[in-house]
Structure formats: C-alpha cells, structure tokens
C-alpha cells in the first residue's frame, strides 16, 4: 500500500517537475532510437515494397504482380504455406504436450534451466547448423537413413513425393523435420508461460466439485489455454514461413519463397526479373499481416487469464 502511494506521489511530483520549458529537451532522448529504426527498419521495408510496385524507370505499376502467375513461383508459395502450416500444427501439438510434461519438473530446477537454454539455442540460434545436423541424420548417407536401410530395408528417400528431385531432405516435404526441430523449442518458449499460468486453485476447485482430471482439462485447462495455444501456433507458422537459413543451407533450388527471393536478387543484372523480390516481399507481407492480425486478436483473449 505504501509503495503504491509513494509511486503515485512520485508520479505527481514528476509531472510537476517537468515544466513546459524543459519538455522538448527531454523528447530529444527518443531521437537516436527513432532515427535508427526509421533508417534501418521503415526505409528498407518501404524500399522492398516499392521495388515491387515500380517499373525499371521508377514509374508506378501493378504489372509486376504477373510474377504470381509463374508456375515456379506459385509452386514455391504453395510449398512455403503447406510446410509452415504442417510444421505449425505438428510442433504446437507436440510442444504443448512437452510443456505440460515439464510442469512436473520444479520451475527453478536444473531440468527447466537446461530445457530453457536448449530451446533458446535451437529456436533462435540454429539455422544453418541445424541443417548440417539433419544432413548427418536423414541426408542421403545420414545416420538414421543408413540405420533404417540396414535394420528394416526401409529407404527414407522413398517417402519423397518427387523421386527425380534427389533425397527427401532437400525437398519441401523433407524440410518438415529440421523445421520441426527449431519450431517445437519455439513452442516451449512461447507456450510455457501460459501453461505455468494455470492456477492450482482451479484444479482444486474442479476436484472439490467432484470433477476428474479429464473434466478439468475439458472444462478448465483447454478453454483457458486455447487462445495462447492458437496464438503460439500462429507465431510458429509466421516463423517457419519467413525462415530462410535452414532451407538455404540445404538446397539452392527455389522450392520455398525466401530462397526464390534470393535467387532473383542474385540475378539483378537481368532487368526483366529485378522487381520479382519486391513483388514476393509484398506477398509475404500480406500473408504475415493477416496472420499477425489474427495473433493480436488471440493475444487479447489470452491476456484475460494471465493477470
């Protein structure tokens, strides 16, 4: 109580101290941050979009959107969307199970410290290095590939939908596995706070009313966690959709949109395709805009239970 009154008094005093004469000087403190984010975040985004909306001579045009009619680009968009969706669904379900299992561990115990650190490394640091790990695991002479052949006579590459495009790992389908490998840890990072936010009292209340654990999950756990769960699912979709490093380290062929963007950027001497990265950037931003709008809505619902 005292702390609150002190804080309130301090706030009032602070407002009194900042006389109109000194205010503009204090505002200047935001200038470095504003200038930095303007030049290195706003300007590049606008330039990327602008390059998709202009002709070679700089005039406005919508003709560039014809790029979306190219079969290669359409295929890459479909691949990117399907892969991200599959990864998002699979890793949010598996990650959620993992989160609940982690509730059994002490919140400040060593296991949680290790899981937190490992999640952080795999979700935020991995990229290229995780691609190497999967080449060594399910690549054409990977450890699992050879073991499966040896033990069961099963060729993992027979799962590849396109038999002419080389090993499974270098196709969009095979990338499901490395993508899962950095998405499940992301789910643990994002979803764990929500699972930890389940109050023990709710469980006791259900038990007092004669409910069993299944009823607890059905009537309390699942409804409370649902907004956070779907929010996390969307976040994983967004992360997988815009991820570049793993795919680029595995293959040079443009099977996913981010890789296609780089290919066309590499060939900027060719005026005919110079605008294609910009057009694809617009496509990605539109999809991300829709997805993150949904995320913001779900977050608002999830916040209700996390006060």
């Amino acid at each position: 109580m005292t702390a609150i009154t002190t804080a309130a008094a301090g706030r009032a005093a602070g407002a009194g101290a900042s006389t109109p004469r000194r205010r503009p000087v204090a505002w200047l403190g935001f200038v470095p941050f504003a200038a930095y984010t303007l030049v290195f975040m706003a300007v590049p985004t606008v330039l990327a979009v602008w390059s998709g909306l202009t002709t070679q001579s700089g005039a406005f045009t919508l003709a560039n959107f014809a790029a979306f009619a190219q079969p290669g680009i359409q295929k890459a968009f479909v691949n990117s969307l399907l892969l991200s969706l599959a990864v998002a669904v699979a890793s949010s379900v598996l990650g959620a199970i993992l989160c609940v299992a982690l509730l059994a561990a002490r919140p400040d115990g060593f296991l949680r410290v290790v899981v937190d650190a490992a999640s952080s490394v795999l979700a935020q640091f991995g990229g290229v290095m995780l691609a190497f790990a999967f080449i060594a695991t399910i690549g054409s002479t990977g450890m699992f590939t050879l073991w499966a052949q040896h033990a069961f006579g099963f060729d993992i590459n027979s799962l590849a939908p396109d038999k002419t495009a080389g090993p499974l790992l270098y196709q969009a389908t095979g990338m499901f596995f490395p993508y899962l490998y950095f998405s499940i840890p992301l789910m643990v990072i994002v979803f764990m706070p929500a699972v930890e936010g389940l109050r023990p009292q709710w469980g006791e209340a259900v038990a007092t009313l004669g409910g069993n654990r299944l009823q607890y999950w059905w009537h309390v756990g699942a409804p409370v966690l649902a907004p956070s769960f779907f929010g996390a699912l969307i976040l994983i979709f967004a992360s997988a959709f815009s991820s570049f490093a793993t795919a680029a380290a595995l293959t040079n062929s443009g099977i996913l949109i981010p890789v296609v963007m780089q290919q066309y950027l590499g060939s900027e001497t060719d005026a005919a395709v110079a605008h294609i990265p910009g057009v694809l950037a617009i496509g990605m931003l539109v999809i991300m805009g829709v997805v993150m709008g949904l995320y913001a809505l779900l977050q608002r619902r999830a916040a209700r239970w996390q006060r």
Partner: protein
Amino acid sequence: MSGRMSRPVRVGATPGKAASGVILVIAGIAFLYPLYALAAFAFQPVGQHSGFTLDHLKALTDPVRAFQYQQLWEGIQNSLVIAVITVVLMLVFLLPAMILAELRFRSVRRVIEFVCLLPISIPTVVLAVGFVPVYQQVWHLTGAVAWVLAFAIGIITLPYAFRPIQANLSGVDVITLNEAARSLGAGWFQTVWHVIVPNLRRGMLSAGLLTVSVVLGEFTIASFLQQNTFQTGLALLEQADPYVASTFALAALLLVFLILVVFGAFGAGRRRSRKAA
C-alpha cells in the same frame, strides 16, 4: 512415492511423474539424436560411415589447406565484431529510449514495444531485400566492410533485446528510485547512471547474451548482402570440408547452450535465494 508422501489425488494440470518422465525422455532422445549424428559425422574418416578420427581437426592447422578455412576464420572475426557493435547499438539506441519512456513519457512505452516487436512480423528476407539498396548507399560512405551489418542485424535483435530489459524495468519501481535520487540532489545523469542502470544489470546482461547469440547465428542478412560472417562461412565450408564445418557447428551450438545454462542457473539460484530471504 508421490501417492503416499503428498496428496493422494492429483488435481489440476500437473501430470503424473511417470507419464511426464516418459514424455521428457522421448523428447530428449529425439532432440539429441540429430546432434549425436552431427558429432559422429564430424569425426568420421572420409568416405566411411563409422569410425573415429581426429584427422579433420589436424587439417585445420595444415598450411597447405589453410586457404579452405581462411574464409571461416574471417567470418568468425567479422561476426564477433558485429556482435560487439550490435550490443553497443542496443545500449546506445534502445536502452536510453526505454528508460526515458519509463520515467517521463509513459505513453511512449507502447510505441517502443510495438516498434521493437515489429521485426517478428516483418520477415527477415523482406528486410534483406530492402537492405540491398540501403547498403549500396551506406557502402558508398564506409566501403564494403562487414561491421556495418551490425545496423541491419541490430533491427532483427530488437525483440530479443527488448523483452528482458522490459521485464527488468517493470520489476523495478524506477519512478520511486528516480524521485529518491533526485530528492537527494542527484542530477538526471547521475540518477540514470548510478541508480537506474545498476538496477537493470540483469535485464541488460540477458538482452546482451540473446543479442550476441542471434548475431552469431544470423545468416539471412549476411547472405543477401553477400558479406562474410560465421554462418555464411560455415555454409561455404560445408561444400569444401563438411567434416570441419560440422565440428564448428556443433561447437558453436554447445558453446551458446552452455553460456545460456550457466546464465539460467545463476538466475534460478538468485530467484530461489530471494524467495528464501
């Protein structure tokens, strides 16, 4: 064990020890297996699928093959320089703005949060497409050197730097601290430097660690701007000498993991001691 010692009936979300143990062990094996495969591959003799040799590491010091690894060493150096500069950028651009917003312009906090979390919604590849023309101008001024990438990479580290600092800020009553310091006669600089910043050490350290790990793992921007960093160097070396590339990948993963474990254990220990006190 839990049946007799604690409550007889489990309620709420906490799973049974056996079930959660099985799940965690399966997950542990599934996540360690690819890393084990990577380690096994890194020390395999050329062309074989089993066995152990240290020959690949010896090649690292072989002057005849030095040219192969030249680019990787250079990339590691560049990445370390970029990491240091990015942390400095964070301290110079982000931290003052966050403190100022917390102390004086509390309505601006929402704006800073929005801006800092924006890079999650803008795919890095989209930013990278825009960075190409921006850096054509920047490189006119500086020459095509790698360290300038810190400005671009600093943007994608914003969400990682923002969250720990924000968590720390909201856990400390900076307004009261500020008023206390000011009423004792401290100027604003003294207040921020000697009172506010020392209270934010933990958030700053955590933000710095995450920033460094994101910078060292960054591939997209360096690749789009055709600069040589640790990750682009690794990706190139994977073609020439996949064994050494795998060794470096494994070592980097382990190193960052260990740093985070030590930092996390330190944090958990502090939380426990504070609860006990």
